[in-house]
């Protein structure tokens, strides 16, 4: 049961081999028994899940089901779910019962999917290891004491530990792709604006995007079909028609032009990881693709640009957490200023506070031009690099991360060292382009992710490129030892 993909579950449900109630109960039981090891869930919602499963079974019996009907998934605790705690991994929202559903949640509800619960995450999506959560670190099923990546670490660990067949995540600087790479999963960060941000607690508004974390590219496509689409409640939502992301999964890859940026293969890259990537590229060649070396000269600048833009936007987005209308308020404030400072000082964790301080500084008087404006200019240069490259190639490939899953606590003493994890993923969010990570090898028993980058709104193509690799190889079928 637990190794089935969503595509397989859908077929089984359709054939009546099992019911949504049966699948859902099985997963709930497994979560109850196993999640103590991983800490991947913050809130499990058994009553609600079973109620949804029951309703789904009725829809299936009536013959009105779509693929996702009755399928249980988990949601990153960054999406507002009405009537359920929505914490964003933070003490600040530990007591926050969301009064409304995010658009993404509404879309899943509309097709009668089942929600198993809310997954753990780096606080306010700030982190690359899920060590910044108020609810404790998440353990990677692939290695005791190893991080699952972040900020969608809970979603990735849950799927990798078979505590959900798939999950939703969000990606601001790599927070879907990097955890997928570290946990042998397939995930996609869609083009900016493809999925609605309404109801998704904001970190960096011009970079955030929601996406699926799944066992296969096909499953990711199935989920993206539900998630994608224009939303009038989100001014940054793209008013573009949505493809059927499953339609061209099996299109042959002959003639596909793949670009390999030389900046993605520098000395910083672990040579064993590099070898796995090169092997994957060779596989693509055998599938008919042509390889071309390209350059994205401003890649290195994506780190400083991102670590100004994201904290700056976050510092403003998080100002609403002030203890006045919801969320954490400190005990016995003596005056308004004390209430603000202690509520925020006690409610936020250190990484969040660090980034708010950096962001506040970057926007402050005298520094705006040198920091924020400069970063936005570099952002345009990075976008231009990609646009130029994508004129010559169809997709761009490289490693998702410079190394496989590191140990819990290994990088927490120096925030800058942690930021280096995102070197290959950040530039995509700055440009707004879509990108995937899929399993492509192992190093010392730990998964390695291949990143595939496409042109604006080319998710269909990306999923096809990923899917064909998964038809020819078995990396994605590996499961964590000792499950």
């Amino acid at each position, binding site marked *: 049961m637990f190794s089935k993909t969503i595509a397989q579950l859908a077929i089984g449900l359709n054939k009546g081999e099992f019911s949504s109630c049966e699948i859902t109960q099985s997963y709930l039981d497994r979560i109850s028994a196993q999640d103590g090891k991983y800490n991947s869930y913050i809130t499990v919602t058994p009553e609600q899940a079973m109620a949804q499963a029951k309703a789904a079974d009725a829809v299936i019996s009536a013959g009105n089901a779509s693929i996702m009907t009755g399928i249980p998934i988990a949601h990153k605790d960054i*999406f*507002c779910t009405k009537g359920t705690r*929505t914490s*964003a991994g933070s003490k600040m*929202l530990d007591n*926050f019962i*969301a*009064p*409304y559903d*995010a658009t993404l949640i509404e879309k899943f509800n509309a097709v009668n999917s089942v929600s198993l619960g809310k997954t753990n995450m780096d606080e306010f999506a700030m982190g690359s290891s899920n060590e910044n959560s108020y609810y404790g670190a998440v353990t990677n099923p692939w290695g005791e004491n190893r991080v699952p990546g972040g900020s969608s670490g809970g979603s990735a660990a849950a799927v990798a530990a078979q505590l959900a067949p798939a999950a939703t995540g969000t990606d601001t600087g790599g927070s879907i792709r990097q955890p997928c790479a570290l946990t042998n999963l397939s995930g996609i960060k869609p083009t900016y604006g493809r999925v609605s*941000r*309404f*109801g*998704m*607690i*904001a970190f*960096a*508004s*011009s970079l955030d995007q929601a996406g699926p974390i799944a066992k296969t590219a096909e499953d990711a496509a199935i989920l993206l079909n539900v998630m994608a689409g224009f939303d*009038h*409640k*989100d*001014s*940054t939502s793209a008013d573009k028609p949505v493809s059927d992301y499953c339609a061209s999964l099996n299109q042959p890859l002959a003639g596909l032009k793949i670009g390999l940026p030389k900046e993605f293969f520098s000395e910083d890259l672990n040579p064993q990881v590099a070898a796995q990537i090169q092997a994957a590229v060779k596989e693509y060649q055998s599938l008919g693709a042509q390889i071309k070396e390209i350059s994205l000269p401003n890649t290195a600048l994506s780190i400083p640009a991102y670590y100004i833009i994201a904290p*700056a*936007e976050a510092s*403003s987005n*998080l*100002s*609403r*957490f*002030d203890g*006045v*209308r*919801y969320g954490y308020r400190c005990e016995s404030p003596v005056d*308004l200023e004390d209430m*603000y400072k202690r509520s925020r000082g006690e409610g936020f964790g250190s990484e969040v506070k660090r980034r708010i301080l950096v962001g*506040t500084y970057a*926007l*402050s*008087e005298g520094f*705006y031009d040198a920091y*924020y404006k400069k970063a936005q200019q570099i952002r345009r240069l990075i976008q231009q690099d990609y646009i130029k490259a994508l004129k010559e190639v169809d997709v761009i490939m490289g490693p998702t991360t410079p190394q496989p899953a590191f140990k819990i606590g290994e990088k927490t003493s120096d925030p800058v060292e942690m930021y280096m994890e995102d070197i290959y993923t950040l530039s995509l969010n700055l440009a707004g382009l879509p990108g995937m990570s899929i399993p492509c090898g192992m190093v010392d028993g730990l998964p390695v992710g291949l990143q595939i980058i496409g042109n604006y709104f080319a998710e269909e193509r990306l999923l096809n490129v990923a899917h064909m690799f998964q038809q020819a190889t078995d990396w994605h079928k590996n499961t964590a030892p000792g499950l």
Partner: protein
Amino acid sequence: MEWEAVIGLEIHAQLATTTKIFSGASTAFGAQANTQACGIDLALPGTLPVFNTKALEMAVMFGTAIDAEISKTSVFDRKNYFYPDSPKGYQTSQLFYPIVGLGSLEIELSDGSTKQIGVTRAHLEEDAGKSLHDKFPSMTGIDLNRAGTPLLEIVSEPDMRSAEEAIAYAKKIHSIVTCIGICDGNMAEGSFRVDCNVSVRHKGDDKLGNRTETKNINSFRFIEKAIKGEIIRQIEILEDGGHIPQETRLYDAEKDQTRTMRSKEEANDYRYFPCPDLLPIVIEDDYIDAIRSKLPELPDAKKQRFIDQYQLNKKDAGVISSSTAQADYFEIVAKGIKDAKLAANWLLGEVAKTLNQNDLQISESPVDADALAALLIRIKDNTISVNAAKQVFEAMWNRQGSADQIIADKGLKQETDSGAIEKIVRDVIASSDKQVQQYIAAEPDKRGKMLGFFMGQIMKASKGKANPGQVQGLLKPILDSMCD
């Protein structure tokens, strides 16, 4: 050494949209606390703004009304600061690229002179909620109904040099925004708020002195007092050798003075940056042209039309056209009785006096335009005299009925039958032998003054009901006929 005041005004006009600038909640005034504050207005996590088309339209209407530059691309910026009535911890405003750019308008002063006052810019922003400090002993209550109401912030150039000029400018802006229908102009309800920037310098100096900003004054009277007081205060300090700190002040109406505003004592670094949740507002020439072509008649044009069409004098035309409510009232009456002069006289006379006495706006007058027209028609058709009409008006104001009802109830109909009037005239003449002899004996050019006695007696005899015009028409010829 002569001092010169330099004054600039920042006016916040609440736009009369049905919903908020970024959410679909109502902006209606007077609702119970927090019943018009949806998730977006409360800044719930995950909520996002969507821009109200009417707010854009109204901003562009204002820009075209003052012949200002309209930006085809404008941007919303975040102004970051913490205050409980600002739920997001930032106000969405426009700093770098406002929707309306440079414009100007003409003001007229009491001596009849005119002056051009520049408008630097006008931009869209959202209003904050309300803080109630006096409701609870140790807590402040926050009502976010007003949070998110669209504001148009209109910034003048520092072109004014006196409180009079500032008031003329503020009233001109008020008449424009109410005339084009983008703001209800209700200062008591906070729809139109004025911040005054005042500094002084020696006349001839081209450097500006430090300015103070006196915020949120909501009546023209207080604006005038605040500015005058501030000018005097600053001059006194400077003459004593002190200096003026750049600061924000509040006007205290009871004490008639400004004082430093505590919460703004520290300079605020607002960390403006373009709002990433909103995209650039882009409009085309045809959008702007369409709005310009649909603008209603502006106060200046209306004034000229009142001069041309109704032959009103410049002063009266200026006063009546300055408010749409007044102008509309006037036109209904003038057209109704086909007499613009009479309509203007009453509007600027009896009606204005009574409104002022009761501290009411014309829109709140218990006697509406049609009712007044019905009264004035009775003057024109000689049913009642002017004096009687004033009595009737007072009764109408006190809701005692329509003009005709009151005339009937109080028996105010004047005598117009010429036979009856002639009888009264002859009776008075017959019983006033002494005065008649004086009249006959007097020089012809001195006789006019003597008519007053007879008029008085005739009006007394007729209990005020004889139509004065008809009396006049009969009295002099009868007396004169007795002279030769």
